[in-house]
């Protein structure tokens, strides 16, 4: 496995090997699916739309439906205007969505198609909406695409009414699972805060099998709610990379105050999230939530011996990885390598701050890295555990290090759509996974005389 990866690290300035990111449009498509009745539309070659649908489908095991401008060579020469105009007309006639969210691709961006002009000159049926986001694949990553489409929801739809607020909190969950979005909503409901979550893929990408296919499942933030965002009393954006841009856009456009926090993975980030909620709304914390927290602490005390002091490599998307690193520190683990493929110096700074303030000195952190580099670090100085997406399974097998699957994508295991990793309950699930991964390996490999019943 990965036998061609040498231990010696040589500098690479051009060749990316085993990327730890993908391109913008897939993130935009995921965000768009979090709008109720939305059909994402990919303005580019058919292949982009096909790849994105395939990959999201593999991750969620759910229908991912999106349309495409089906560029041909002619469209590249003359521009994609006709393809988009005709495409949108066809989409509304046949698929009847409430809203179409168009994302660009590297192709249409390089051509320079002016989406604003094309869409405004298209005959959109009455009562239907089209929004768009520029998502060039050669800038940022899939997280940037998610951020851009989320921001576009504000840019194109949010407005502020003259007659005052709606008394709701705007909440941006970030590039997390439908289960995580549902868990964040549960916490808000427990505290008793009315809210508008956008995007919201719960109820869309974890829909039930009822024997009937519904093209637009019941979940998702509605267009009406998106319009109402300008009347919210404040925004909580979870994750700098995925959510911050939309929150600042809402602040700029409608003077809704932005509060940017970490994605609430782990005890500390969840505490921060809840404290922020309480401070913003002057509400009491419900007993139920306090009890969940207490259970989490109980578990952390009870089985710390399973993982305390273990070295861990954490990789994936920046917002998730940052929070996970903080949680690993809370668990007494030692994050030795922390890597994301998404570019951005804020990631390196935030992770460094977390590790340094925990007194950890011997670590490497990198944004815009790839998995080959992570593997080489590990080859040179091993860790006990990997936490990251499915692509980590190659390193895991090559180096015989257990992998806890977290983040996007997870293509070879299930659970992520249904069981959250955010909040106190999510933190307990992470502990369960970490502990199980480490103990399973021990049980498989330890000498028979050391094989124990109780651990």
């Amino acid at each position, binding site marked *: 496995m990965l036998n061609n990866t040498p231990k010696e690290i040589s500098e690479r300035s051009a060749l990316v090997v085993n990327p730890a*990111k993908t391109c913008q449009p897939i993130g935009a498509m995921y965000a768009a699916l979090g709008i109720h009745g939305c059909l994402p539309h990919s303005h580019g070659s058919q292949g*982009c739309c096909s790849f994105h649908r395939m990959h999201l489908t593999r991750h969620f095991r759910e229908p991912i439906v999106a*349309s*495409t401008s089906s560029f041909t060579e002619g469209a590249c020469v003359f521009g994609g205007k006709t*393809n988009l105009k005709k495409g949108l007309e066809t989409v509304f006639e046949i698929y009847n969505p409430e809203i179409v969210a168009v994302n660009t691709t590297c192709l249409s961006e390089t051509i320079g198609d002016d989406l604003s002009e094309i869409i405004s000159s298209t005959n959109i049926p009455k009562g239907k909406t089209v929004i768009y986001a520029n998502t060039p694949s*050669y800038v940022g990553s899939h997280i940037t695409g998610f951020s851009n489409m989320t921001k576009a929801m504000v840019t194109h739809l949010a407005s502020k009414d003259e007659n005052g607020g709606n008394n709701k909190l705007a909440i941006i969950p970030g590039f997390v699972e439908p289960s995580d979005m549902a868990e964040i909503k549960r916490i808000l409901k427990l505290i008793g805060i009315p809210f508008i979550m956008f995007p919201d893929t719960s109820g869309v990408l974890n829909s039930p099998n009822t024997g009937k*296919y519904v093209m637009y499942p019941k979940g998702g933030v509605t267009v009406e709610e998106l319009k109402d965002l300008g009347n919210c009393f404040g925004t909580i954006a979870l994750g700098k990379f995925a959510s911050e841009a939309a929150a600042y856009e809402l602040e700029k456009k409608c003077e809704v105050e932005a509060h940017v926090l970490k994605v609430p993975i782990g005890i500390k980030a969840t505490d921060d999230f809840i404290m922020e909620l309480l401070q913003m709304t002057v509400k009491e914390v419900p007993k139920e939530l306090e009890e969940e927290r207490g259970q989490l602490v109980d578990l952390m005390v009870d089985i710390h011996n399973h993982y305390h002091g273990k070295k861990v490599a954490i990789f994936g998307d920046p917002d998730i990885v940052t929070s996970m690193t903080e949680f690993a520190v809370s668990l007494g683990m030692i994050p030795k390598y922390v890597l994301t493929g998404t570019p951005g110096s804020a990631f390196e700074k935030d992770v460094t701050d977390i590790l340094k303030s925990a007194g950890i000195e011997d670590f490497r952190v990198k944004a815009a890295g790839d998995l080959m580099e992570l593997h080489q670090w590990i080859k040179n100085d091993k860790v006990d555990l990997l936490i990251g997406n499915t692509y980590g399974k190659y390193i895991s097998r090559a180096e015989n290090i257990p992998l806890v699957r977290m983040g996007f994508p997870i293509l070879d295991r299930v659970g992520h759509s249904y069981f959250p990793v955010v909040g106190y309950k999510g933190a307990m699930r992470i502990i369960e996974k970490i502990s199980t991964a480490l103990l399973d390996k021990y049980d498989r490999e330890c000498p028979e005389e050391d094989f124990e019943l109780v651990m």
Partner: protein
Amino acid sequence: MKDDMNKIVDRILFRYPAKVMKNRKEHILVKEPEGPKEISANTRTLPGIITNRGCAYAGCKGVVIGPIIDMVHITHGPVGCSYYTWAARRNKGKAREGGKSFLEYAFTTDLQESDIVFGGIKKLAQAIKEAVEIFHPKAISIAATCPVGLIGDDIHAVAKKAQEEYGIPVLAFSCEGYKGVSQSAGHHIANNKLMKDVVGTEDIPENQRKKYSVNILGEYNIGGDEWEIKRVLNKIGYTVIATLTGDAEYGDIAKAHNADLNLVQCHRSINYIADMIEIKYGLPWMKVNFIGIENFSNSLRNMAKYFGDAELMERTERVIQEEIEDIKDEINRYKEMCKGKTAVLFVGGSRAHHYQGLLKEIGMETVMAGYEFGHRDDYEGRDILPYIKLDADTRNIEELTVEKDERKYRLRMSPEKLEELKKEIPINQYKGMIHDMKDNTIIIDDLNHFETEMFIKALKPAFFGSGIKDKYIVEKMGVYSKQMHSYDYSGPYAGFRGAVNFARDTAAGIHTPAWSYIVPPWKKEPILKGKIEKEGVEEAC
């Protein structure tokens, strides 16, 4: 019944806006006894239609070139295209003793905005340098993505220079995603390059050539298919020189012209090269179908007939008998579970045809079938090739003309004998999918999301064989849908043992108890009124 199928089609088409209806009507036909009608294929999908089709890059790098194990395949472009074709297609491979496999790797130049503005050539050259220095591959491929063509990066010049500098083959493919109308354009581009630069470059000396040497073309070793096919071929006494391109090494393909027969499994993706090899090197090709017991057996018999050796024929029969003996009880068990059920197939450019026989062997009739990116000849047979009108999208793909290689050209048998054989076995011949389908079945090209939903509702098949994009749509409708590109991570499905795997998985998919739980009990059974009053009221308060 006959009227029903036409009515079903009309009823679905009727729901379309006029322009879309006009377009789609030409891509759907009901087979009738009077002989096949013409079907429209390999034409543009209307923008906005939710199609399953991909792009030329997917067909070139993803399908044909990617499976070559000992090459470093560099995708020149932004990160996504490389990422999505990384280990997701299940083209298996295994490094040879002392050799290398890069199948678990993805390589890309990860173009950034400044590269798009100022050009990506320097970065590409540097990436090749790094790949050579770190990985020392046998050869390198460069696959262009959409923006590369637009910004005018001359990847062929970079490849040429690198080839001279590093002394290894560097193949550049201009397979930008917007070329052609589907993956198919990419297959063609890949075939052309392999033919131009790879096939024929490594000779096997005459005294080392083996009897009964063949190549398998259009077999990508999904789920280990090629290994199962090869197991049986080796048992009979064949030597497989090259498989294009499942589990292939670069060197295998370079030696392909030394074989005595090309076996064409996937006609769509590889017929170009089969034709060109015959013209240039003199070895004919034969259409085979390795899917299903009868199809595989017949293909093996045809191969033996081609070589015309009595002992080979006898050995072929013996192996067929042995293999069938091994599996027949198990197949029959699954047949009991599947018989009488119907299937719909919508796959690539050959599987929608190939699997009909195997389904029949487990008692299932295919009531509708279509290709995602097939051409008219895949439906109607090669006889119509001279009558296919090329549109602008197809004309943009280079049509390579090859000539006889005077030094390496070798007739495998006299032209007269070959002509005689053609009457008996499918040499240079493919009759297409429609030929093997029953009357009153539906043939559909480039099936889309709307039609999938409508046809599943109308036909209510027990099995829908398609891809990942529609699998879960169909399963939400309570119908088992099997990915026929990735075999739902199972396999092999080819050959004799593969047939058992397919039968087992299909029986399991249709009969898994989960289907019986879709309707909850409270929607099926009346709830006793008394009970509701007794306990329900209290709860309601």
